[in-house]
């Protein structure tokens, strides 16, 4: 199975609407008689509500309703997504009086106008009993849990122990032993979380940008105690997500409840400052990496130990060493992952959730080893490739990391690099650093159902279970259909993100393309066969509409299903319940990952130590590239994330107060246009022969695995300073 392609470079199919501001995001829906809502949040780090005073709020002109915990009788919490729920955490605010973390919602004010709702929310006051809390990895009261001992599925969450890493390390003549830290981060898509809920009798319609309409539908129905048949959730587009919108948030059911109580539609747009506490975030981590090599540069052992923050109420597991074990062919590998319980909302997924920090740590350590061995860091990595996976002994479905490294080095001009730190300068004295790092990300596949309908007027309509959040999902599935039916991608209408269609699985974890494209392709192949049966003598140039007209059929419909190799049919049942049903990266016959190599140039101004990134070259192995235009943009975007993660982004915590201090876009620094220079991207573009019928692997996440390490390694090369924490700031280099 080598699959289709190569695919043509076509424009983003939804770009024309996007440049005109016509694309509908969740908050853009404005049903008649709409009321507006605003949340009130807890101002203590932990404790219990004693009293919520809503009198002043109710007296504000235009305020129609104030909901508190006293108005939520009968409401049930849906549960945490890693515990057979659909919510980003198990705590559903405003059920009961417990305050688990600063920023937890305690009231919802609804008014005729947004201005009145805001004023009303400011008038709500509360009395609390406070309790001691811990909010950082090292706070007193933090509970440390060994992940291997927790009730998490094995072997997925077991420590890895391949060969005898400790013995090999002890015997190795050259070793590295270093600790790396990463700061908490927030996803911060520019679109704010928003819910628009309206009832028609006992039927609820929710507009909310999400990565998982079915999860919200099922979760809401459970929380409200109504049938899922009575709930419709619509999210054709997401204004960015990056993991933030992958599960149900607290406000959705509260807005639905308010709309039912008031008998009119209600909209809530959650302010940015509140989002820092009412969605997940990337937890801080600490990595101890030990590497051992022989003097010839063969890496013989690695030990990767991780501590990661989780909440007091949920176990957000670490899956980082799934990837670090596959970055290089290291025959003796041991990992140990621990969680630290703290009083925060449950941390979660943010683009390359674990792998961003893990690759920073591991690929920094590889760079340190290269200097300890006095070996070129590209050459060292090339010398430690293995064609099979040491963890399982199985082959990789495809692994073109060497080609990523070689092609990237050539495009970058790596051969001109001088090894010694501080050895390259511009004529004005600017320190120049060149760094490299690799990345990998598991290939995972979720179940998917595709419905394809062609009509005699030329319509080709695809409804398939994947969400569009800017990654180019519509282009990818349209390209898959267009390739088979011999039409243009922009002739395929893609209906996504509506629970009226076939139930979609959560779109996350870089599995969207490998999940939806094979289903869409199979539906198109089935359609092609059905059309052939209608008119076996049809010429090659016959269009689907022409064949239908010839056969006097107004339309033709097919449905195709796709699931991961070896996945049981039960995955479809779980998907229909809005539950996680992905399989991978280990499959019966192989293990599958995407791979990447990043080459970064930094300039460090010698007096101020300001770091700039004038150019990056990145080469990815994501299997066949179905949508070259959007894939290139997605890859560049991942590199921008890496630069932000390396040099800018940190959610600041004050252990005395809890919560996050820099809860807006002026204080939480994301890369701006002037921070970004040239980013050249390229693809191996070889179809994966084993994973699916289209030869595709994932791209969105692997793009942000490794670029931060490449920046850090370039900073070392420029300055001689090995900074072992993210982000790297001027004060680290002065």
């Amino acid at each position, binding site marked *: 199975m080598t699959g289709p392609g190569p695919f043509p470079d076509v424009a983003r199919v939804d770009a024309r609407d996007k440049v005109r501001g016509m694309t509908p995001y969740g908050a853009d829906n404005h049903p008649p008689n709409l009321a507006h809502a605003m949340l009130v949040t807890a101002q203590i780090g932990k404790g219990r509500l004693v009293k919520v005073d809503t009198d002043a709020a109710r007296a504000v002109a235009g305020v129609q309703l104030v909901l508190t915990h006293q108005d939520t009788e009968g409401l049930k919490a849906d549960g945490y997504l890693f515990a057979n729920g659909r919510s980003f955490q198990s705590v559903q605010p405003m059920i009961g009086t417990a305050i688990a973390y600063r920023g937890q919602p305690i009231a919802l004010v609804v008014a005729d106008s947004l201005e009145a709702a805001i004023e009303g929310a400011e008038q709500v006051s509360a009395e609390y009993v406070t309790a001691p809390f811990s909010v950082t990895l090292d706070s007193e009261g933090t509970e440390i849990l060994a992940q291997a001992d927790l009730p998490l599925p094995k072997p997925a969450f077991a420590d890895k122990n391949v060969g005898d890493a400790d013995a090999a390390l002890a015997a190795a003549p050259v070793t590295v032993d270093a600790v790396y830290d990463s700061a908490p981060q927030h996803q911060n898509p520019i679109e704010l979380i928003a819910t628009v809920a309206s009832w028609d009798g006992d039927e609820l319609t929710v507009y909310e940008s999400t990565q998982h309409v079915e999860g919200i539908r099922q979760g809401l129905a459970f929380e409200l105690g109504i049938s899922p048949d009575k709930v419709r959730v619509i999210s054709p587009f997401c204004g960015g997500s990056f993991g933030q919108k992958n599960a149900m948030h607290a406000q959705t059911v509260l807005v639905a409840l308010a709309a039912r109580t008031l008998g009119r539609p209600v909209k809530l747009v959650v302010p940015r400052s509140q989002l820092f506490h009412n969605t997940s975030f990337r937890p801080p981590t600490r990595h101890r990496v030990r590497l051992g090599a022989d003097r010839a540069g063969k890496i013989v052992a690695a030990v990767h130990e991780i501590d990661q923050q989780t909440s007091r109420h949920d176990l957000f597991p670490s899956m980082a060493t799934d990837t670090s074990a596959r970055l290089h062919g290291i025959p003796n590998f041991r990992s140990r992952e621990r969680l630290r319980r703290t009083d925060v909302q449950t941390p979660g997924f943010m683009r390359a959730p674990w792998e961003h920090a893990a690759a920073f740590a591991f690929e920094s350590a590889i760079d340190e080893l290269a200097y300890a061995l006095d070996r070129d860091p590209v050459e060292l990595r090339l010398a430690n490739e293995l064609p099979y996976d040491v963890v399982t002994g199985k082959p990789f479905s495809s692994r073109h990391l060497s080609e990523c490294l070689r092609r990237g080095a050539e495009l970058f001009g790596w051969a001109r690099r001088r090894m010694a730190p501080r050895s390259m300068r511009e004529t004005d004295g600017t320190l120049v650093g060149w760094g490299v790092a690799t990345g990998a990300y598991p290939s995972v596949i979720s179940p998917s159902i595709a419905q394809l309908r062609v009509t005699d007027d030329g319509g080709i309509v695809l409804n398939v279970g994947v969400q569009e959040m800017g990654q180019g999902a519509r282009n990818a599935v349209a390209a898959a259909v267009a390739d088979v039916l011999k039409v243009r991608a922009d002739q395929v209408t893609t209906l996504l993100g509506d629970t009226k269609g076939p139930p979609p699985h959560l779109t996350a974890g870089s599995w969207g393309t490998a999940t939806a494209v094979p289903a869409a392709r199979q539906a198109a192949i089935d359609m092609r066969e059905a059309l052939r049966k209608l008119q076996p003598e049809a010429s090659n140039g016959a269009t689907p509409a022409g064949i239908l007209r010839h056969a006097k059929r107004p339309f033709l419909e097919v449905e195709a299903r796709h699931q991961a190799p070896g996945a049981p049919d039960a995955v479809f049942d779980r998907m229909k319940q809005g539950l996680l049903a992905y399989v991978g990266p280990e499959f019966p016959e192989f293990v599958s990952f995407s791979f990447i190599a990043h080459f970064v140039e930094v300039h460090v101004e010698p007096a101020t130590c300001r770091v700039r990134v004038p150019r990056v070259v990145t080469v990815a192995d994501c299997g066949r590239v179905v949508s070259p235009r959007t894939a290139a943009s997605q890859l560049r975007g991942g590199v921008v994330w890496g630069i932000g993660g390396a040099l800018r982004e940190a959610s600041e915590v004050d252990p005395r107060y809890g919560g996050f201090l820099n809860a807006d876009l002026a204080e939480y620094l*994301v890369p701006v246009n002037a921070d970004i220079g040239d980013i050249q991207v390229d693809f191996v573009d070889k179809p994966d022969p084993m994973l699916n019928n289209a030869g595709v692997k994932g791209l969105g996440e692997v793009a942000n695995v490794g670029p931060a390490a490449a920046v850090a390694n370039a900073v070392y090369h420029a300055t001689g300073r090995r900074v072992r924490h993210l982000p790297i700031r001027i004060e680290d280099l002065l």
Partner: protein
Amino acid sequence: MNRNELQEVVTPAQSILVSTRPGEQSAGAPGSSGLSIDIVVNRQRRQLDVDPRASLLDLVRDHLHLMGTKKGCDHGQCGACTVHLDGRRVVSCLMLALQADGREVTTIEGLAGPNGSLHVMQQAFIDHDALQCGYCTPGQIMSAVACVREGHANSVAGIREYMSGNLCRCGAYVGIVAAIQDAAPRMQGAEP
């Protein structure tokens, strides 16, 4: 452009006076003291009662239902709400609706030609895939058009600097710069 010049720009056919209809919700809570303003939005003159607390952004979205202008921060930090006010770019979340009295507002919906033809900047954003999720895109395009008119699009460094008030979390900056470089020379003469 100031208010007097407006009379010359707005043709009689476009100068339709739209006032809040009886029974239509005014831009403010019932009972609050709505204040009357007279503004031109996308070449259409309107008289509106506005809540003195309302931002221009919320006026445009919640009351004029022009949803292309986006709320990303409500604090003037992200640029997603960028519109043109008398031809200059402003972040509409930082301006009270009342301050727009007597002035001309252009949103992304007003950028295309009267026949629906795309502005050259809109086409350049498509051609260079200068967007991903599309949420910041209307603000980016409004800023990009202003950036060219201000004379800040003559170099890559200038574009990067003067487009840094518009955040793109998807990271489409390389495409945005390329789109502006492409569109800038073609905007000369193509604009009214």
